[in-house]
């Protein structure tokens, strides 16, 4: 299925958000959102990935 991960359209077989993070090789220090809604770390394994999902994976960054 096709999803959008951090703005890039890609194909994935990941069943859950946890799987997707593992597939993408993300480290532990990230936070996630699915279709504009925050997904707490504890709920990632129970959050299914569906066709057309927009997933955001963010990390600490410089800010003012």
């Amino acid at each position: 299925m096709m999803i959008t991960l951090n703005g890039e359209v890609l194909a994935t077989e990941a069943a859950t958000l946890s799987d997707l993070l593992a597939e993408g090789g993300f480290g532990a220090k990230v936070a996630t959102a699915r279709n504009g809604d925050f997904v707490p770390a504890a709920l990632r394994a129970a959050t299914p990935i569906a066709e057309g999902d927009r997933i955001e994976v963010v990390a600490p960054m410089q800010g003012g």
Partner: protein
Amino acid sequence: MPVFYGTQVDSALMLGTAQYPSPAILAEAFRVSQAGIATVSLRREAGGGQVFWDMIAGLGTRILPNTAGCHTVKEAVTTAQMARELFDTSWIKLEVIGHADTLQPDVFGLVDAARILTSEGFEVFPYCTEDLTVCGRLLEVGCQVLMPWGAPIGSGLGLNNPYGLRSLRAHFPDVPVVVDAGIGLPSHAAGAMEMGFDAVLLNTAVAKAGDPVSMARAMALAVEAGRAAFEADPMEPRDMAAPSTPVLGKAFLA
């Protein structure tokens, strides 16, 4: 020293972490300035997040994540939720940007987002204008800190509306108020502190100085001097000269 949501901070200087020439210069700027709070952000992970986080954690300062770049209530709320988990703090510098050229806050969206976030247990630091009504609304929805701009973000123009800032200070004497954005020089920072504000938050003025470390130190000195001056109860200005040397006893030589 300022107290935000029950937490006393060791310095009235709050410093951003963006735009420094190098991580080493950033760390040194924090070390020499002894800034009490570091602002940080969230961006799409493209590698480097962990390294940045390790460096920031090493500064030993309190962390204030922001929602910079958010233009809608929804974006700002989701970003705040992600920041709370990532940085393990309920503090959030809430920015809801309303205008692309001035980065002026969308004060209507700001109040809406602040209401949602305070109801979810966040401790909101709203980036706002000096408008009394807006600030009153922010307090009504649960904010216990205000962060009015001095001037547009990154402009270095200083305190653009001294009347408005003075008026805000006078209207809300017991609310911690931070002048955020627009500070370009130590004199601007000192000016804000002389008016009785509790802290200043700046970033570009230090990070984009030719020598950021020296500027960080200058800002820290200015903040300290401005606060000391406020506490010393400055004299009232007057239009006419008044001799400071006693007139009585002057030799008659004409």
